[in-house]
């Protein structure tokens, strides 16, 4: 089976083209956009880990190593598309348009952290694994019913493929042929459980066969492969040809979350298979004349400033509002709940 799903690459580990077909489609703008966003989210990610260590952020789920997968896929979206991320996909949502400060707030236990700008349809990150997959199918179904060209993307990990919701979501999407892309980041582990213990299939892409759905396997650390293959899947979806399952093979460089210690369950053996996606793009830029020291310096400074400003915004954000505990449960508060709220505010000496 595995041979039916070779890993699609556009550039190799040293940043040289392996698929020359793409030479024409890759221009400076694209290269710089990919690099910029990857650098930007990495800066964010490292800062977040730092803040967590300093006690300025709650438990945090880092994505280092998965930047190409997240940025490449997010840049393939249209503005009106729907995004259903997990707790590890803030690299993708930051790229799609969620703000950094908002994202920090999420990791500080603030519901405000779930809210993307009004012109970006980004769902709150899925915490219970795989549950967002049917949501994405449903949102895409709505677009189809309305006859738009919008589509949806569901992000999920290798572990998520073991849940019933993965199966039911993909089945619905294929039966109703809805415009959705199932974007799997196979980062080798679900917390401590390696993919060989998660499934007996050699690839995740082949799971598409169960749904009569196209499935492809790509090098998730090759930002070009991610970008172009995701775009293709979206084109297909927008043309009414239904969903695609994409397996982006990548690697979680750090811990599952800041509360996790990967040395308990993995050696860094397999890490050697993965060249850092940013470094790889740098190789490419050097190989093909896109490398520009001054520009890199400039965006480095810019993103650092952006992250610092976001930290400040997060830390200056008004403290959480007790009323919010009660106010977003129903459109109209039931009497019982109103009484609970009133009593509690009275207890706090308010109202």
């Amino acid at each position: 089976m595995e041979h039916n799903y070779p890993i699609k690459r556009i550039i190799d580990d040293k940043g040289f083209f392996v698929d020359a077909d793409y030479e024409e489609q890759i221009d400076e703008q694209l290269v710089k956009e990919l690099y910029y966003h990857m650098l930007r989210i990495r800066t964010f990610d490292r800062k977040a880990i730092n803040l967590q260590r300093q006690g300025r952020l709650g438990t945090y789920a880092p994505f280092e190593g998965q930047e190409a997968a997240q940025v490449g896929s997010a840049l393939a979206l249209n503005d009106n598309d729907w995004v259903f991320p997990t707790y590890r996909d803030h690299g993708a949502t930051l790229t799609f348009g969620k703000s950094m400060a908002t994202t920090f707030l999420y990791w500080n236990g603030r519901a405000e952290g779930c809210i993307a700008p009004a012109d970006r349809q980004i769902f709150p990150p899925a915490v219970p694994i795989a549950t967002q997959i049917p949501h994405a199918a449903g949102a895409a179904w709505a677009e189809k019913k309305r006859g738009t060209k919008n589509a949806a993307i569901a992000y999920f990990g290798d572990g998520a493929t073991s849940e019933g919701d993965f199966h039911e979501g993909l089945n619905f999407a294929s039966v109703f042929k809805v415009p959705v892309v199932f974007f799997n980041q196979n980062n080798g582990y679900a917390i401590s459980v390696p993919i060989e213990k998660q499934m007996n299939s050699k690839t995740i892409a082949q799971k598409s066969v169960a749904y009569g759905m196209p499935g492809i396997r790509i090098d998730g650390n090759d930002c070009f492969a991610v970008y172009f293959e995701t775009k293709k899947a979206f084109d297909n979806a927008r043309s009414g040809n239904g969903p695609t399952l994409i397996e982006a093979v990548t690697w979680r460089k750090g811990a599952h979350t800041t509360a996790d210690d990967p040395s308990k369950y993995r050696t860094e053996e397999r890490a050697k298979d993965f060249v850092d996606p940013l470094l790889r793009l740098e190789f490419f830029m050097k190989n093909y004349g896109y490398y520009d020291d001054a520009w890199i310096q400039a965006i480095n400074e810019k993103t650092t400033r952006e992250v610092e400003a976001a930290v400040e915004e997060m830390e200056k954000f008004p403290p959480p509002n007790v009323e919010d505990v009660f106010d977003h449960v129903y459109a109209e508060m039931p009497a019982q709940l109103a009484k609970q709220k009133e009593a509690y505010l009275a207890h706090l000496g308010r109202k």
Partner: protein
Amino acid sequence: MTQVKESHQKSETAKQMTLIQAINDAMRLMLEEDDRTVILGEDIGKNGGVFRATDGLQEVFGEERVVDTPLSEAGIIGTSVGLAVNGFRPVAEIQFLGFIYPAYEQIMTHVSRIRMRSMSRFTVPMVIRAPYGAGIRAPEIHSDSTETLFTHMPGIKVVCPSSPYDAKGLLIAAMEDPDPVLVLEPMKNYRSKREEVPVGKYTVEIGKGKLVREGADVTLIAWGAMVSIAEKAAEQAEKKGISCEIIDLRTLYPIDSEMIAESVKKTTRAVIIHEAHHTGGLGNDIISIINDTAFLYLRAPIERITGFDVPVPFFSLEEHYLPTPERVVEGIEKVLHF
């Protein structure tokens, strides 16, 4: 989007309907009125539903609006969440309440929580309909009455009509509600009686009980198929000179605490009847409400006549599981002669 293909001439203003016809009528009406309405579930399209709740709807409104889904409850509810946040108003049928559990995570974690998690940016105005209850000699596991698994879940509402009139009015109210509503339909009542039901649109307010019988000595509180058990018990009690007041709760969350409090303050005694298991049943919530609101009025411990703490038995024994008028009368006598 599929357009309504037929328009229904309505000459009369009311019609004799069974509860299941009233349910069908409510959905037909809303499919006509609101393009965002999508009905989906197992066997609800071509087959018109295993109880015929959706009979004829797919013929009229087409396969895009009345959708036969795969056999997949988490899929039905999960995609309904996606449809609802993206502008539709799905009405999902779960074939029997006893088969809702595969969708439990979607309901518990998402249907009920998305408004809160997104601070009202995303909402899921959707309806889940589910036939429930024992007493129709259905095969095993078709007869659960597990309403408290949902009333304990902040973020959704739960209604349970016992009559055709209430069924139509509550279902329409549910379909217009900005929040998710679970509509529990007592199978036992689907065809048990007909009554006059307005042909046009009306709603029954969610959160309001109904006084179905006035009385002085004791308040009986019931819902769904248990309302008629309460009524029969009240008739038997009347022969013994006991005057029963009966509340049909109709909405199980949020409960009409006021109606309960007022009635119990008057009668000073209460018997609660439900077919759900004793432990963890809604009866406990009602006792708590009375504790909170009418403590000093109460002259006897409240009695609960309920299903037992056992799985609903196979149908050859289900009559021994379900509350009967006789058990209720015993309860009534107990609270009166405390």
